[in-house]
């Protein structure tokens, strides 16, 4: 017999936990949370550094502490969850097939689904770095799990490729555990990590950051022996003669995250080619009715706090859907990324389903100084924010007042970067 639930949430990281809690709090009884790991919390459990919760709780928590707040609440609300459980199929009709050692193969039917599968790391294979294939190469997140949870130190002389936040955090972590971090190498002219991580993880420990550089070759037969680092030009091509060798036994890769959307694809959900995540509306609903998505599966966030905020919206929306409170008749306003903007989430807005306000999440495509972030509704300027500095590494949040959108015949919202006063 097929079990039935009101809301099934896939993935129990920060997004899934918050979505399940919010669905239950909004009057939905049968909520099920599913995760493939052996415990709740997802990647938060390996992020032992502090800095979580600054926006939401006004205190600085570590990843596990942040997770524990939600896990406690989940237990208080008596929300059912299944661990060690892999979802292997998902349909538009909201039938979920999953597998675990206790139940075997099971299918459940849900009235609404929240996708919260997060993302995974890009690997060496995605970069095509020339050289041999020795041991000693890890994605930064894998090394983080080994060091922080499993108790394996991954190496002694370390080079890190990519200056994303996980790479920066691992530079400090490896140093504290006694390794020598020789270089953090970044292809772009700027780091994609948060400024506070550059300062607290690199500057504090005098770890050099090489901007406009990449790794040209990997050397070593059994274990990594060294890497060639090279300067790159404006087209990101190696500059001849600007190569130097660094002896090292470990290379950590922090070269980007990919939203994990295999299940979304199986269910035929439409994805955005820029974010690699589902196209969503104001309610975080995907192209499949009643299937919602939130967190890093939609677009890669910089802070867990923002994942939680987005996930709560998805959880509330799923509850509304179950209670048939979502309206599907209204007209959709399309949200567009204009000049200087890489993407905007959500992708469209059904004004009838708006709460009091709506947050647009957006990333710029380059570093901008002394500029304005502008939101227009057709030709009317809705929001103009002065920005001293805009960087691709930090998501911008733009709060829109629902009142400004309601009762208008507009069809397009555009977010763009403009020079001050323009």
């Amino acid at each position, binding site marked *: 017999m097929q079990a039935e639930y009101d809301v099934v949430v896939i993935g129990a990281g920060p997004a899934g936990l918050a979505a399940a809690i919010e669905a239950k709090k909004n009057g939905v009884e049968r909520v099920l949370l599913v995760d493939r790991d052996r415990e709740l919390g997802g990647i938060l459990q390996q992020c032992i550094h502090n800095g979580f919760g600054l926006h939401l709780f006004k205190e600085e928590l*570590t990843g596990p502490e942040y997770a524990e707040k939600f896990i406690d609440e989940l237990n208080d609300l008596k929300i059912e969850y299944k661990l060690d459980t892999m979802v292997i199929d998902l349909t538009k009709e909201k039938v979920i097939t999953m597998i675990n050692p206790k139940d075997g193969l099971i299918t459940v039917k849900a009235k609404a689904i929240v996708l919260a599968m997060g993302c995974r790391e890009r690997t060496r294979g995605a970069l095509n770095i020339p050289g041999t294939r020795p041991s000693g190469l890890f994605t930064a997140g894998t090394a983080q799990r080994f060091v922080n949870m499993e108790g394996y130190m991954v190496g002694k002389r370390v080079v890190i490729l990519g200056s994303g936040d996980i790479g920066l955090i691992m530079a400090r972590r490896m140093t504290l555990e006694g390794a020598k971090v020789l270089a953090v190498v970044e292809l772009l002219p700027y780091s994609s990590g948060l*400024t506070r991580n550059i300062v607290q993880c690199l500057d504090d420990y005098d770890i050099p950051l090489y901007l406009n550089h990449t790794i040209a070759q990997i050397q070593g037969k059994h274990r990594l022996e060294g890497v060639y680092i090279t300067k790159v030009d404006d087209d990101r091509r190696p500059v001849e003669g600007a190569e130097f060798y660094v002896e090292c036994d470990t290379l950590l890769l922090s070269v980007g995250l990919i939203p994990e959307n295999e299940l979304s694809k199986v269910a035929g959900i439409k994805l955005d080619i820029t974010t690699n995540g589902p196209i969503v509306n104001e309610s975080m609903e995907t192209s499949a009715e009643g299937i919602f998505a939130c967190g890093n599966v939609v677009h890669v966030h910089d802070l867990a706090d923002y994942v939680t905020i987005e996930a709560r919206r998805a959880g509330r929306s799923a509850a509304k859907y179950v209670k048939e409170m979502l309206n599907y008749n209204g007209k959709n306003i399309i949200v567009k990324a204009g000049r200087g903007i890489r993407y905007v989430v959500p992708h469209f807005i059904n004004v009838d389903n708006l709460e009091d306000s709506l947050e647009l999440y957006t990333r710029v495509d380059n570093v901008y100084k002394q500029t304005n972030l502008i939101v227009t509704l057709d030709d009317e300027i809705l929001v103009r924010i002065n920005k001293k500095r805009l960087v691709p590494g930090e998501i911008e949040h733009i709060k829109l007042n629902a009142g400004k959108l309601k009762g208008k015949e507009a069809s397009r919202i555009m977010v763009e970067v403009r020079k001050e006063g323009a």
Partner: protein
Amino acid sequence: MDNRKMICIVCPLGCQIEVVKDKNTRDFTVTGNQCKKGKDYGIKEMTNPTRILTTTVKLRSSYLRRLPVRTDIPISKALILDCMREINRIEVCAPVKAGTVLVRNIFNTGVNVIASRSISRLSRTDRA
């Protein structure tokens, strides 16, 4: 060091600030900051920079081999590597409750090292 350039990390603006110490009056002048918090940050970084230290300790009787820990309040940056040596000597046994003090008043700083998660007592082959 009497002069230092740094990036202020109080807010996402990330002002490039410069702190200059007057040789005679020993007062600090901060430039490049856009608010008062930047000035305070610059002076603190010159006088007594502090950080929350987060690391792990050995853990027994659970499905994980490491327990995450942190200092309960920021500790002087100069003491961080000494603290690491001290903390690395600790071994704890599950179950542990988040917030449990593992080292009280480390190096007489008034700072405690606490567990930063709860963990149950389970063998590595058991499932949480």
